[in-house]
């Protein structure tokens, strides 16, 4: 069954007809071409598909697109400014070496974004907790944690 839904995605309002079975992840990737959000396990175990929904980190593979009707979604593509001006989190991930194969990176960055939006000065344990649902097989998490700490400092300094 098809449903008409309206989403605010990365600042743009879009109206879509979606199949009731389709997850938010599928609709973002396949209908809106936002392939920055990654499919990893498709069952909520890995955090690879994390986006923010009304400011909260959510697993887009575990949510039907129709459930997001009327809500605001931010994906990894929605973080940078004009001309690919990197968000402080993106910049810190690049500079700190927190990205290796990069497949899990959008999920980590979006989990960290949701954290920093709510808690601009997190301690190490709070950072670890915020990304504890995200799996990375390359980095060993050290440089990811450093990147989030560094971005928090930079963003805190800007305020």
């Amino acid at each position, binding site marked *: 069954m098809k449903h008409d839904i309206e989403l605010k995605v990365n600042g743009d309002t879009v109206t879509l007809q979606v199949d009731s079975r389709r997850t938010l992840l599928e609709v973002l*990737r396949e209908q809106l071409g*936002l*392939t*920055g*959000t*990654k*499919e*990893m*396990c*498709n*069952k909520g*175990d*890995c955090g*690879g598909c994390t986006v923010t929904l009304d400011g909260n980190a959510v697993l887009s593979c575990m949510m039907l697109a129709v459930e997001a009707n009327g809500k605001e979604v931010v*994906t*990894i*593509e929605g*973080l*940078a400014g004009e001309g*690919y001006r*990197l968000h402080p989190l*993106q*910049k810190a*991930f*690049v*500079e*700190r*070496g*927190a*990205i*290796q*194969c*990069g*497949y*899990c*990176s*959008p999920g980590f*960055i979006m989990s960290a974004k949701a954290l920093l939006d709510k808690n601009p000065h997190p301690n190490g344990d709070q*950072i*670890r*907790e915020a*990304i*504890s*649902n*995200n*799996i*990375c*097989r*390359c*980095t*060993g*998490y*050290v*440089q*990811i*944690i450093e990147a989030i700490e560094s971005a928090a400092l930079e963003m805190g300094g800007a305020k």
Partner: protein
Amino acid sequence: MSGESLIGKDIPRIDSTDKALGRAKYTTDMVLPGMLYAKVVRSPYPHAKILSIDTSAAERLPGVKAVVTGIKDTPRGAVFGIIPHTTDHVLLPYEKVRYVGEEVAAVAAISEDIAEEAVDLIKVEYEQLPYVLHAEDAVKEGAPLVHDHRKGNLAARYLVDEGNIEEALKNSDYVWEKTFTCDVASHGLPEPFTVIASYEPSGKFNLWLQTQCPFQTRQGLGNTLKVAPSDIRIHSLAMGGAHGGRSDTPPGAFIACLLSRKAGRPVQVKMTREEVEDCMRDKAAKVWNIKVGFKKDGTITGRDIRIFLECGAYASSAIVELWVPLLIDEVLWRAPNYRYLADLIYTNKTISSMMRTRAHVGPMSMDVCFDQVSEVLGIDPIELRLKNAVLPNEVVPSKSVVTSTGLSESIVMAADKSGLREKKGNMGPNRGIGIGSGNMQSMFYMGFRSGSTSFIKFNDDGSCTVFTGNCDLGQGNQTMFLQIASEEIGIEMKDIKLCYGDTELCYQDPGNYSMSATVVSANAVKKAAQDAKRHLLEIAGDILDVSADEVEMRGKEFFVKRRIGKGRGVKIGEVCRTAFKRGKPIFGFGDYRARIDYSDFGIDIKEPYNEKTYGQKVTAYSFGTTTVELEVDPGTGRIKVERIVAVNDCGTVLNPLLVKGNMQGHINFMLGQGLMERNVWDPKTGRKLTSTFRTYKVPTANETPDIDIHFLGIPDPDGPYGAKEGSLGFGCGLHGAISNAIHDATGVWVYDVPITPDKMLQLLEENRKK
């Protein structure tokens, strides 16, 4: 360029900005016009004969464009295997299935939904056969044979026998013997296996897939499709994890090619998480029995190693499991008498193959040995290690020369930096510290593939493009190639582009196989850059009316050396344009052949036995030592690793930012396999029970310890600028360090990994009863 060297600088990965923006294109992101979606029919049985396949209902389903089965579509006699002896894997079988999940048929349709529906309409008739899941059962008399012609389920045997081990052990003052085991582990790759194949009317296949070694995948597909490898073009994209798990010629790629040729349209095969875990590759379970003879003074007289490895259903590429442990074990600790006898055993399970941590049981056994024997002989355990540690220019049992090693230095530094001597035995209840050493090869024997060829073309604006057949798994190879080209040529990295891993445009390269990227592929790029620089200087010299050796490059300009600061320079763009006008554009060619003995490595064997294993089989070895501090919870059996000191002997450190990141990643991988990662099969059905991240536990940020990294910086004679493999070797002793730390914490010795909480509790309980 200011003339300041880039070697040893922290340079962020050049591809990470695209990845941070979500712009990087992975195979799973690709859609081609007219692309069809495929689904695969898989065996529900661990061992069965395929009697018949009825695809008629699936073929009638609207939207289905092609159906393939092994019976109808697999070219006969086209079998995959990386060496002749183990060409045992029919990628879409037509006679027998040998593990749950093996491919039997496939459908391509205009949507995934239709393909899934069609798969359900295919009726396969099987005759179930008895199956065997574990090596110890598979070698027993009367066990079901996974391959009828391989008696005792022996896929292959490998022997190195140097000196007289029996005599040596008999004459030793003390002989230590133990058996170590490890479970089957998964790569847990983030990006689901995906391939897109597009067959062209000319007879050519274009493929986009995740592969660590495009040229080997091309060869494997050529062999199994029975087409010339040059009729297959592999395109490399960003890749979501590899870790050894994308080194093969996957059945999914073969099936996508068959479907695309049949349908006349591009076809995507994308696996689910369960399919990836059940049907891609695993790391072999091992049983590692070791005897070590010692003199009273602590000198090792000999080592006798007998191992059994489970290769799963096919030995096609699992054969590597047989000799890589040797290439680690024979190197670390001197042994004048040495025997390594390894059997690769078929079972009805997921196929084993390469993995970054594949050989950890060997190093682990020796570090446990040193700690135990030190008590028997009354010798300090660090001194015992140093007495037996390999030194530069020593010859290992299979006759490779170790051209550089800082093993001893790494042991001393790790012990010092961690405070091992002070902390051992003094860390308080249930807390302990341990040490372990490891090593790895930088390029092992791969026949004619043991070399790489690179070239560089210059553009008319003075920029250039580097071409290499190597690719990037995330470890930073792209960055390394541009860093080296920039260092040699003298133009900035941003003025150099890279074309990589494209089998049509690039020359042959080993790929990310045998840890060869630094020593082999980067050396080829270095030579190509030097060649291009020579051409630039020649043309600049012509323009400036002097010989090439009188010319110096400063920034993007060339000057006559003796007139620097006085005369006019010539810009690099002008040099390039002059070269074009002369009909000889600036070009650099570089080829690097690994320093190995190209004679027989015993891999062209016809029988599952080989003894011709002598000669230089590895170009360079990396080494290193780690210490682990941990706490064991006696109530839950849970082990918390708190601190790790890692000392890396990886030669010159090209880019510390990246090498450190790779090391942290390797530690994470090793911790996972040491403490939690294991695959389990249901004995009643032969099914894997650990095919998701919920059931196959991997470390998260919560398990990350403090990691203190140090480099020795001892240059290797063959590596570019003295660099060698930097991500793996240092950490291969981590499980020995964990085992020794657990003993320090609890008095319990661990001989089996992963040491999961249930196993730990059981060991503590047994210890209490003693």
